[in-house]
């Protein structure tokens, strides 16, 4: 059940909010959150609900095992339990996400071949296993104690606002609200605004651009002119940001409606001034996860290494960041690409870059980011060459495949609002209006209501067009 579906907006969310706030005792709220989250999950992925229970049980129990060993000052035993807990989480993720990929690699090197049918991926598994690992490591590092209340813990691990696509949230971030749920009317207002903004970004802009990019990237690159290739790349760059950040806005907004302050995940990544800056602005909670639980421990474990220590650790971390995005070579190469650039920036180039003209810094970053999206979007590595050729004019400015032949001229104007929503100006304008309050705030809220109605109309009419065009 996507956040942008009519069922979610007009049925699931209102019922959840009413149940959450109407029930008399605050202790019930976590239970409401757990039950509604289970329904939310089962709605989209009923066959994997047991995986969710398994993840809850593993992380709840091993959290307590680590905690118990620590209260007995059994440092070694705490460490063993920490590793078992992490391996169980990684085992679950690995079994569902990576078995096929690793068997492919193995089969290509072996004389015999092991048969395997790829299993369907449980919804959100990459996100809730990473949350589980952060919970166990934060207990191990004595940032907080294990949660004894199973309902409260489940509420943390599987709450539906962040279950499927994050933001990856640490237990410590939401602990106080889980203990003492609060009703904050202004928070609800703010959450509704945030949700509407995210919904519009996702439905009107990202999904429309997606209709166009799907056609561009499915077309024959050898018959594509540079104009269409650049449009495809620019549109995809905007689409992936608006889709993911729109989703995150909705997640954070729902969190606010329920009294939680989920962490921010994006900070206008396309106005980055370097690639290390980009990774502090793009998917912030994933970057923070890898930095806290992998990069920093690696750095300290290898502190005696004199040569290229930080560079090699960046390579390792970003290879794995790439692999986290999907079990295929294009994601691994995408990760390696970023690891390599970050290693260069960490070797002194970053310092030089800071002294360059701001325009150069922005251009440097956005061009490298866009090249990265080619690796990300085109999963078949063997097609990269022909797309790059098209991009740099090997087939001329236009060729056989055109905007007209793909029937995507309609989507061209969407680039303008998409660019506006990817830059900080609109957001800053909204914040100013909120700070002014009074009439300015009222005008802003009328704007939000209009945007909401427009977006809903858009969702409904798109349902119709999909239906109408089904025969073509």
């Amino acid at each position: 059940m996507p956040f942008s579906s009519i069922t979610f907006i007009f049925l699931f969310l209102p019922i959840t909010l009413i149940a959450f706030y109407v029930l008399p005792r605050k202790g019930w709220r976590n239970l409401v959150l757990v039950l509604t989250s289970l329904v939310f999950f089962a709605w989209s992925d009923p066959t994997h609900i047991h995986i969710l229970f398994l993840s809850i049980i593993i992380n709840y129990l091993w959290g307590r095992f680590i905690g118990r060993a620590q209260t007995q000052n059994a440092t070694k035993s705490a460490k063993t339990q920490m590793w078992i807990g992490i391996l169980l989480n990684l085992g679950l993720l690995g079994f569902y996400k990576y078995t096929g990929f690793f068997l492919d690699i193995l089969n290509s090197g072996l004389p015999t071949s092991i048969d395997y049918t790829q299993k369907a991926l449980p919804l959100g598994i990459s996100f809730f296993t990473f949350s589980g690992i952060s919970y166990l490591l934060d207990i191990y590092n004595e940032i907080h104690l294990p949660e004894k209340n199973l309902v409260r813990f489940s509420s943390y691990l599987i709450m539906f606002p962040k279950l499927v696509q994050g933001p990856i949230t640490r237990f410590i971030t939401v602990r106080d609200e889980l203990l003492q749920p609060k009703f904050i009317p202004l928070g609800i207002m703010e959450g509704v605004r945030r949700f509407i903004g995210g919904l519009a970004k996702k439905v009107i802009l990202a999904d429309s651009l997606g209709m166009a990019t799907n056609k561009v990237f499915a077309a024959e690159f050898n018959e594509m002119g540079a104009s269409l290739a650049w449009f495809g790349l620019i549109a995809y760059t905007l689409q992936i940001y608006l889709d993911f950040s729109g989703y995150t806005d909705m997640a954070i907004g729902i969190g606010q409606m329920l009294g939680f302050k989920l962490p921010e995940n994006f900070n206008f990544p396309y106005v980055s001034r370097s690639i290390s800056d980009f990774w502090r602005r793009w998917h912030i909670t994933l970057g923070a996860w890898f930095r806290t639980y992998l990069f920093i421990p690696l750095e300290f474990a290898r502190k005696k290494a004199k040569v290229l220590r930080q560079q090699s650790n960046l390579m390792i971390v970003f290879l794995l960041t790439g692999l986290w995005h999907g079990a295929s070579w294009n994601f691994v190469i995408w990760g390696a690409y970023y690891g390599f650039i970050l290693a260069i920036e960490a070797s002194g180039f970053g310092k030089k870059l800071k002294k360059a003209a701001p325009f150069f810094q922005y251009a440097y970053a956005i061009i490298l980011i866009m090249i990265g999206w080619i690796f990300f979007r085109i999963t078949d590595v063997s097609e990269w060459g022909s797309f790059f050729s098209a991009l740099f004019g090997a087939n001329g400015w236009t060729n056989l495949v055109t905007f007209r032949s793909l029937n995507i001229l309609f989507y061209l104007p969407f680039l303008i609002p998409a660019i506006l929503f990817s830059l900080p100006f609109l957001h800053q304008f909204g914040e100013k209006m909120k700070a002014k309050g009074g009439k300015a705030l009222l005008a802003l809220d009328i704007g939000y209501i209009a945007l909401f109605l427009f977006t809903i109309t858009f969702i409904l009419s798109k349902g119709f067009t999909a239906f109408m065009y089904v025969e073509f």
Partner: protein
Amino acid sequence: MAITEKLTQVFREVFDDNTLVLTDEMTADDVDAWDSLSHVNLMIAIEIAFGIEFKQNEIQSFANVGELRQSIEEKLGK
């Protein structure tokens, strides 16, 4: 005093800036080159220079140079 001097030296080496003067109120915002990557370099350089070890949860926890210096003093048992 010796600690502050030694710490200043480490800071100057890590951030490649011989004019750096430490104050207790100084934070990462005050030093241009102090980002999340160079912070790790800084902490590792401090561990090696003073022969101490930080806990995982300490590494990203210091609010300013003063807190960092205090933690070093505690670890050295002074």
